[in-house]
């Protein structure tokens, strides 16, 4: 069953800038999908439509057969809890420790303190950050911060992970660590959608690749390499 479906989706930003045009895509549960394209090709917009940061201008995006644009504004936070997000700029809360940043995702969904105390160390262990749980983001390297982000995205056991250039700010070693983690998460059944510029990653992954250009899908290959 498809977890995500784009149906004739277009997105026009104010000022009549066409960011996406007539996108039709089906993403199956458990897939590992890379989205490639130049800056401004519409990668980030496509991802924003998934986690409802932006709304479609035309067409529909379905998540588990439910149109996202039909979700009541009030219920969006609950919808977002199905989705883990990872970004190039990490987006960690600067005044919280690694542990607290991960715990925050559980706190907002009213998990009990016992569950938090059990789940957070477990997930920090998975991403290999158990020993840095009480460090603040500013005390961590880029790679370490991104691992905390991944832990935060994972801790609620989302159905899908959206990663927007997660390795954009990382050195090659850290980059590979993050990709390895994404693969590990994917192998446990979570769908991963990765937007990236990094040719090496895409080539080595050898998974489905979607290329965007000027807001349109120009290529969709099952086991592809980086090419625009």
């Amino acid at each position, binding site marked *: 069953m498809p977890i995500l479906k784009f149906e004739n989706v277009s997105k026009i930003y104010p000022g009549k800038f066409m960011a996406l045009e007539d996108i039709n895509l089906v993403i199956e549960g458990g897939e590992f999908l890379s989205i490639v394209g130049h800056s401004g090709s519409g990668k980030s917009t496509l991802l924003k439509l998934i986690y409802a940061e932006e709304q479609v201008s035309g067409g529909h995006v379905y998540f588990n057969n439910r149109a996202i644009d039909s979700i009541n504004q009030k219920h969006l936070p609950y919808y*977002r809890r199905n989705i883990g997000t990872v970004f190039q700029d990490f*987006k960690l809360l600067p*005044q919280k420790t690694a542990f607290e940043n991960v715990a925050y995702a559980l706190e907002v969904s009213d998990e009990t303190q016992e569950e938090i105390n059990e789940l957070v160390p477990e997930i920090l262990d998975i991403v290999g950050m158990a020993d840095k749980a009480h460090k603040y983001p500013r005390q961590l390297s880029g790679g370490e911060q991104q691992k905390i982000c991944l832990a935060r995205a994972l801790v609620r056991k989302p159905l899908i992970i959206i990663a927007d250039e997660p390795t954009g700010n990382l050195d090659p070693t850290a980059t590979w660590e993050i990709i390895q983690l994404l693969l590990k998460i994917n192998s446990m059944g979570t769908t991963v959608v990765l937007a990236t510029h990094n040719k090496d990653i895409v080539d080595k992954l050898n998974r489905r690749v979607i290329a965007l250009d000027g807001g349109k899908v120009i290529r969709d290959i099952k086991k592809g390499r980086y090419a625009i």
Partner: protein
Amino acid sequence: MKTIKLKRTFKEGLDNFRRNGWLSFATVSVLAISLYVISVTIILGISANMVLKNVQDKINVSVYFNSDVTESRILEIKDKLVGYQEIQSIDYVSKEQALAQFRKIGEKNVSISQALDEIDDNPLLSALVIKAKNPSQYDLITKAISNSNFSAEISRIDYEENKAAIDRLSSVIKLVEEVGLTLGIIFVFIGVLITFNAIRLTMYAHKHEFEIMRLVGASNIYIRMPFVFEGIFYGTVAAFVVMICLFVTSKFLAPLTRGSISGGDIVSFYFSHFFIIFGGLLISGIFLGTLSGIIAIRRYLKV
């Protein structure tokens, strides 16, 4: 709202307050300065009023009656005057009481008591001592009395002698009230504006975090509540700070006000009104803090 949410957002607010040390310090300072200026204006206004009321209480108009007017007649007139709404109180002072008072004043002055002894008869007149509700009304009252049907029985009204002092006092009172009110309104306005701006900037600093919280799936209430609590902390701490500053200020001003406020000086005023002042500060601090917080967040909170 669930207790767990309330507990967590409270803790969140407290953490924000503690961990953003400098930002909290700056916000509390601005809030405290505004509250301080506002409360000093109000307290100065109140104590100026008290000083003036104190002086005002000492002012009165005496209406002296001809010596042939009987006591019962004077009391009859008094009853008539009681009906005037401008009059606060009327006291009857008989010529015997007047003499006794005069002798008391004259005790130390031999020539007065000698002079009184010389005259067998009591030379003083019975009088009605009238206090007006408002000093500006003395003029009206004396005019009404001199134009009344018993004006023939009146020997003299000593208002004319005090007129200059009374007029000056009533114009001073009016001026103090007007200036105090105008300054008060201006300072309240400036205070609200500055506080609002400071808290708006604080929220602006958090703007990036709102986005993160939304992406993690926090509901609006979960994002907003910690800042509401933060506003409450700002208000509370500022109220404490201002209480201390006001105490120091009143200690400093105390020698100037001693004796002119009924019941002591400004320090005793501070202590006798401690809870009213503190409560007022706490409520306005919290109100200002949370309201500007909520208004500021609204701008940065889109779902």
